[in-house]
């Protein structure tokens, strides 16, 4: 293929040659011809992977880069440095693109210039009654289904790097992923924060779909929770204004069991780690006996411990944690709040939100206060498409409101104070 490619596909991999070969074969099988280049970055030298990749015959230019193991963030940056196309597509090595994926990513960039395009990668989990695979599939499905809703308000935790494309110019202007995140654990979310702060739009494209060959086990999910805990601290270190909204900032106010779990993570990690090591056994027994509620409780508690263990890796003492979360030690960004009177109609309200893109909104209907949506750190600014969801969150019966605006004869049917619980016949 001659000339500059339209899209550079970057696949970081670590010791999974058969998996990355499956990804490359799927790129060969794309239905629409797309001028692409593929850059595979071996994060940690692997003779087997290198030999397999270098002997591969492909219809697209394939670059194989090797680096000392430094984590997915560094490997992706390395690939992006080599990329020549105007659009970078990051695929994880266990992600198998469906035949329309590349074309769908490119179409999304044409229709939304400058956007960050997220594609789903549905987990390939055989139908089973085992609870762990069921929970993994549910998590991924809920994530992608949530993003597909028209009124979804994107947040930094939506930025998943397994099937993500981004204009190269924007990626480089934001300096790419932060290599301070050594393993896969929050580096994508951290980039999401900087992209949202710079005003980039997130676009979810269901047609850019892939299969995700994830082989999760309870033990792996515990390791992931620990990485997530450490990743969240790193996010807070880099973005102090977000500290108060990190999950562990809320969980400090949790119930007695969770507080005990946190205490173990800080004070007696050897005991906690031993419990984590043996936890897969009782979980297996509970699963076989179909004791779902107990399985959920135990699994959740162990993951909760692992998350705190990750937090404690970087904030070893409770005093460090308190200092880290001290509101006095940080400066919040200046949030933009507007007031919206819905007497002008819902379309007008949506139009104003689209123009002003505030972080927070106070809604009124004439003199009636409908409530306020406060700023939520880490979410994109409000847009017109979010208005229905905001009204629902505030408990405003939307159809009553629209009827009141469109049909004056029915307006007496509006309750005296919108949002109050009313008797259901």
């Amino acid at each position, binding site marked *: 293929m001659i000339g500059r490619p339209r899209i550079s596909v970057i696949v970081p991999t670590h010791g999974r040659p058969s998996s990355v070969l499956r990804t490359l074969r799927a790129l060969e099988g794309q239905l629409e011809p797309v001028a692409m280049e593929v850059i595979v970055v071996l994060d940690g030298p692997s003779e087997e992977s290198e030999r397999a990749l270098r002997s591969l015959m492909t219809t697209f230019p394939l670059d194989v880069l090797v680096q000392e193991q430094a984590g997915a963030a560094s490997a992706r940056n390395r690939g992006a440095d080599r990329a020549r196309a105007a659009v970078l597509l990051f695929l994880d090595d266990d992600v198998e693109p469906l035949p329309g994926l590349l074309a769908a990513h490119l179409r999304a960039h044409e229709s939304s210039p400058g956007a960050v395009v997220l594609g789903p990668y*549905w987990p390939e989990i055989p*139908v*089973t*009654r085992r*609870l762990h*695979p*069921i*929970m993994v*599939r*549910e998590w991924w*499905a809920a994530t992608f*289904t949530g993003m*597909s*809703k*028209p009124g979804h308000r994107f947040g930094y935790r939506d930025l998943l790097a397994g099937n993500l494309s981004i204009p190269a110019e924007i990626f480089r202007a934001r300096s790419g992923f932060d290599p301070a995140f050594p393993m896969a654990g929050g580096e994508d979310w951290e980039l999401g924060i900087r992209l949202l702060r710079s005003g980039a739009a997130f676009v979810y494209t*269901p047609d850019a779909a892939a299969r995700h060959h994830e082989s999760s086990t309870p033990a792996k999910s515990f390791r992931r929770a620990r990485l997530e805990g450490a990743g969240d601290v790193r996010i807070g270190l880099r973005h102090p204004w977000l500290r108060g909204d990190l999950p562990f900032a809320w969980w400090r106010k949790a119930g007695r069991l969770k507080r005990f779990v946190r205490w173990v993570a800080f004070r007696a990690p050897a005991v906690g780690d031993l419990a984590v090591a043996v936890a897969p056994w009782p979980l297996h027994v509970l699963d076989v*006996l*179909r004791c*779902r*509620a107990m399985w959920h409780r135990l699994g959740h508690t162990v993951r909760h411990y692992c998350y705190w263990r990750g937090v404690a890796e970087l904030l070893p003492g409770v005093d460090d944690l308190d200092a880290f979360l001290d509101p006095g030690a940080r400066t919040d960004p200046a949030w933009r709040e507007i007031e919206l009177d819905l007497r002008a109609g819902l379309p007008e309200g949506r139009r104003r939100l689209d123009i002003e893109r505030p972080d927070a909104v106070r809604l009124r209907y004439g003199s009636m206060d409908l409530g306020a949506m406060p700023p939520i750190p880490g979410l994109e600014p409000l847009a017109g498409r979010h208005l*229905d969801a905001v*009204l*629902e969150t505030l*408990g*405003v*019966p*939307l*159809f*009553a409101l*629209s*009827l009141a605006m469109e*049909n004056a004869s*029915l307006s*007496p*049917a*509006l*309750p005296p104070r919108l949002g109050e*619980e*009313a*008797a*259901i*016949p």
Partner: protein
Amino acid sequence: MPTAIVQLELSDPPSTLRVGESYDRAFVVGRLSGRPVAHAVLSVVDGIVDRESVFDHVAAWLASRSSHHPPGSGTRESAAPRDPPSATVAVCSRDRPDDLRRCLVALARVRGDGCEVIVVDNDAVSPGATAAVAGEFAAVRCVRETRPGLSAARNRAIAESSGDVVCFTDDDAVPEPGWLDALRAPFDDPMVWCVTGLTLPLELETEAQELFERHTSHGRGYEARRFRGAETNPLAIGQVGAGVNMAIRRTAFEQIGAFDPALGAGSPARAGEDYDLFTRILAAGFHIAYEPAAVVWHRHRRDPRDLKSAFYAYSVGVYAYLTRTLLVEREPAAIRYGAKWLFQHQLPALWRALLGDPGALPLSFRTAELRALAVAPALYLAGRIRRRSDR
């Protein structure tokens, strides 16, 4: 006296709601831009529904927090609209040609982009009557299933179907024109394997029909709901819906199997095949969506003797389903659910009947339900043995 069935468009309510003079009550279904949002039973005086009570209810409906969604906006769960999956509508019928004709007339009006309609002729008494009625409709294909039972007939429909989803209704039901569109919409989400809809009474002309609606209504409310296998106990399917109004993704049958022929009408267990399938879908971790915009109107049994046998059949079906869930699906929770149904529902109901509570069902209905508990496990096992010998 009988109860009239009336529909009321709330965005444009008429000044007078008139029904026949023979009625003293009206079962009023309120809609907003076509979407059902609530119902109420209101009094009728001289053939007119009391105006004050209508407007009281309109105000309460509009204020109801349970129906936040603007008309036609879909539900909180719905994703961006995409092309609906192709559908096959399956109607299994046995010796009820008049009901079947009414159902097929309604299906001819259902918006469905020329979807396939299959009638499964499961006749026992008058062979050929079902096929003759189906033959009156050009777009309907009729297949004959000689193995008796609703599950066998539905499995035959699945085998004959070509749609991505198979939508089931019964021959004594009348789907609305928008039924198929509403039933197919939630399949946008690949996690949804089953969608159930709202079933309302077609008529309440006899006391038996009133009792049925009051005590075992098929209706499951006016709010769209999502039952997620990862979060819901798979045996907690009481609010999911019923086989008279459901659609199932065809690939689901390949993964978890079809209906169990040892359950359902026509088998010794008489019912429970839909509950069993719901449980297996949830146990596999997938979702069931309840979509109240998918409306069918069901003609309840008119004869009190039929009603008593329906109560008995339903109770046998529930215990047979729990027997299957315990023995085949190896869910120990089936014992807990069986005990809960017995002690929290059936025995208190029996006690109320013994005390002569005015709202209670006759005592004979309740004793029949308890008889069902004694025989259901054996009947289920008999059904399995019979199924094996049929092969």
